[in-house]
């Protein structure tokens, strides 16, 4: 009964979405206020029914309703309850419903917070969002419904959730990513609405920013989490594989990063308008492209959901309409947009333009690398593979100009700068960076390759430059402490974002260069030494879990005679699917990770163990968190809090003296 309710509820939501798509857009076109005013109610309505539909699926999963194909394939009665909820997005159909939930949710959120938008713009934004909702709901209902029934013959037990997915990472990773993908549809809708209205002014840029930043925030968290999860879960110490599905999440992220920088320039200086619109369209387009790649079977990937050409056709068709339509609209309307701002070659505007160019080139490289094998094969020229060596090489080339410019940019002012004034500052920062990098690396390691040195130098360069800028701005008119207190949230966001990036670069460089691995066969009692840590294999323990059995290797680690920790590296056999899974044991700290994975049992009673020493790897995900924090800081900025109150406050404080060292960047 409940699953049927879920299906009907989704159908009602589809109906409301269709109305949401038609009424406001037609109302905006014919200037019919009554039609336009229907939008918010319809938006909330479709959201409510989508939520009901999803609740029905969760209920079915929690009550082990195996009459549903989806629950029978992705869940089992011995699954812990939190993984039963997780299983609602573990399979293709459920994940699509989750996407619909996100889409409906964001639409409702936009509807609630857009009260001060002029009606034509507001109606159009909601209308476009409604159109996107229609597409996804239609697809879910028609081709990938999680409410398909197995009646009258249904199994007594489910197939269980893939053991690889029975992990806390699975609880947060997909929802975070989907929040990001769908969040980009809001920037997309704003861009389309602005093009339709014909007004690409400050209003549009101002409104787009917080939505873009929220989406970016979720994407950053989602990707960082995915990388951490792969590292902890897969047992071979890797954290990024350039798999097509990973690339599908990276491309929207790169575009979103470019977009949030471009929006800053557009909002503050009125430049790059048509380019920003194109980026807003591109962001969501890449989200859609990612969905297509993952679900169509066009590319081979470990993460791929399903390989059904029929489903792929629908998504491709939807992709063609949405992206093709928006690009056609762009082609027609964008030429009428002018960006009146003037700036010299050596200015912050140009630095931001450089940022955009490099980020877009990075996206292009990932796109080419991911799709060229397909094109190459289709053109009859055989199969090729493009993987880690290619991407790593290209990204390390890109890093140099990008990180260099990142260090210079915060010191640049808008419109124009005098090179001489800047030259001395840059030289000082550069010298400091070289000294710090050299003393750090050469005192810690015997061999330092030029690539490692350059990468770490760039990370240090960005950090020192950021600190320099902070100190300079803070002490311009007052003391340091007073000056720091006067910084706006958006300035701290820039500091945080750039510093987070530097952390990631440093971590990637050092962990790639100095990770050590040993593949050994050990008898209980034997020891292995890796980088001054002594690993002793204490023996094997039998383990029994909620829905698995297996073995755990007990490994105690000592350094210079002192005990560091005791690790349990597990190898589990899941009862239902009879699948093996390694649970690597990790001792984490800021300076290094100690990583042990259990392998096969050998004939003579020995066990195969893989032991890794990974320096500074935590900084990678810490850097991701710090970057996400930057996004949060901007969202908490005063101007986005209580928009109805702020204008009054400004009226009062206009006469009072404003703090000068506010360092307005973004």
């Amino acid at each position, binding site marked *: 009964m409940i699953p049927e309710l879920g299906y009907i509820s989704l159908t009602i939501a589809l109906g409301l979405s269709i109305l949401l798509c038609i009424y406001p857009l037609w109302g905006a076109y014919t200037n019919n206020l009554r039609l336009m005013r229907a939008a918010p109610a319809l938006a909330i309505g479709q959201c409510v029914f989508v939520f009901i539909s999803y609740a029905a699926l969760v209920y079915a999963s929690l009550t082990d309703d195996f009459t549903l194909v989806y629950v029978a394939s992705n869940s089992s009665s011995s699954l812990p309850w939190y993984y039963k909820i997780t299983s609602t997005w573990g399979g293709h159909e459920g994940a699509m419903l989750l996407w619909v939930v996100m889409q409906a949710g964001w639409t409702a959120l936009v509807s609630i917070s857009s009260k001060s938008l002029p009606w034509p713009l507001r109606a159009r934004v909601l209308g476009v969002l409604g159109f996107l909702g229609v597409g996804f709901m239609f697809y879910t209902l028609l081709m990938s419904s999680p409410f398909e029934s197995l009646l009258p013959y249904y199994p007594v037990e489910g197939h269980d959730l893939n053991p690889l997915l029975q992990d806390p990472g699975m609880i947060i990773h997909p929802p975070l990513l989907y929040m990001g993908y769908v969040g980009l549809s809001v920037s997309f809708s704003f861009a389309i609405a602005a093009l339709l209205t014909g007004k690409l002014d400050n209003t549009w840029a101002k409104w787009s920013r917080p939505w873009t930043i929220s989406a970016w925030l979720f994407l950053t968290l989602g990707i960082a989490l995915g990388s951490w999860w792969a590292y902890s879960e897969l047992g071979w110490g890797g954290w990024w594989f350039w798999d097509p599905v990973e690339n599908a999440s990276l491309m929207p992220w790169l575009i979103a990063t470019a977009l949030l920088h471009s929006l800053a320039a557009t909002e503050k200086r009125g430049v790059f308008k048509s380019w920003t619109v194109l980026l807003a369209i591109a962001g969501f387009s890449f989200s859609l492209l990612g969905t297509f790649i993952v679900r169509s079977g066009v590319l081979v990937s470990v993460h791929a959901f399903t390989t059904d050409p029929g489903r792929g056709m629908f998504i491709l068709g939807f992709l063609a309409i949405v992206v093709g339509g928006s690009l056609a609209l762009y082609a027609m309307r964008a030429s009428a947009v002018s960006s009146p701002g003037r700036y010299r070659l050596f200015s912050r505007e140009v630095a931001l333009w450089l940022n955009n*160019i490099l980020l877009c080139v990075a996206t292009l490289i990932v796109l080419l690398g991911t799709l060229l094998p397909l094109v190459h094969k289709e053109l009859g020229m*055989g199969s090729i*593979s493009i*993987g880690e060596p*290619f991407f790593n090489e290209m990204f390390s080339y890109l890093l140099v100009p990008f990180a260099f410019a990142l260090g210079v940019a915060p010191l640049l002012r808008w419109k124009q700068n005098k090179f001489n004034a800047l030259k001395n500052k840059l030289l000082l920062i550069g010298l400091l960076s070289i000294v710090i990098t050299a003393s750090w690396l050469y005192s810690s390691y015997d061999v330092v390759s030029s690539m490692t040195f350059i990468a770490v130098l760039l990370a240090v360069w960005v950090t020192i430059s950021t600190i320099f800028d902070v100190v300079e701005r803070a002490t311009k008119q007052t003391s340091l402490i007073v000056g720091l207190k006067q910084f706006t949230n958006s300035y701290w966001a820039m500091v945080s974002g750039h510093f987070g990036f530097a952390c990631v670069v440093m971590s990637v460089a050092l962990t790639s260069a100095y990770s050590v691995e040993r593949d*050994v*066969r050990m008898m209980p009692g034997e020891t292995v030494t890796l980088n001054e840590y002594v690993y002793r294999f204490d023996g094997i323990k039998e383990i029994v879990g909620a829905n698995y059995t297996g073995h755990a290797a007990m490994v105690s680690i000592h350094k210079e005679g002192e005990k560091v920790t005791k690790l349990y590296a597990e190898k589990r056999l899941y009862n239902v699917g009879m699948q093996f899974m390694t649970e690597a044991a990790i001792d984490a700290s800021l300076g290094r990770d100690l990583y042990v994975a259990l392998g096969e049992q050998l004939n003579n009673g020995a066990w195969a163990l893989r032991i890794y020493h990974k320096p500074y790897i935590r900084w990678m995900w810490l850097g991701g968190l710090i970057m996400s924090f930057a996004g949060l800081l901007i969202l908490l900025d005063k101007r986005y809090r209580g928009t109805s109150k702020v204008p009054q406050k400004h009226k009062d404080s206009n006469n009072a003296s404003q703090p000068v060292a506010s360092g307005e960047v973004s």
Partner: protein
Amino acid sequence: MKYFLFVLLMGFSALTFAVEEAQTFDNAQQAQLFKELSLELRCPKCQNQNIADSNAVVAKDLRDKVIELVKLNKSKDFIVEYMIDRYGYFVHYKPPVTASTLVLWVVPILFVLFGFGSVIFRQKKSAVEQEWSEKDEAQLTKLISKYQDSSSQMKQESGQ
């Protein structure tokens, strides 16, 4: 006696380091080469995994062959080409540089050049737009003289 005990002790302690390595190579370079190649060669039968990672039979065959060739002190290029001869370009994660794959490098470079170029082009265009013509100059002179006349007239009238 002391020396004898010492040697005995050393002998015993050496036993604790007798952990067997999963692979035995003649030197560190060989081990390193094997590690690199096992990450760069692709398993032909898997869902996008390198041969280090995969449990497939063909992946194990590839690994064994790589070990064999590495122990024969063959170069990295030789081993990669050996595999490509049999399994095609698919088996190497680095794409070959052919006319059809050149686009991988050419398009990004063109994009960057185009991007930089457009900014410089804009600078030149805005500079050109603000060009000052002779007619403008003449008009400006006329306006200045008119203002000077009127202001000197005002000065005279206010009695200075």
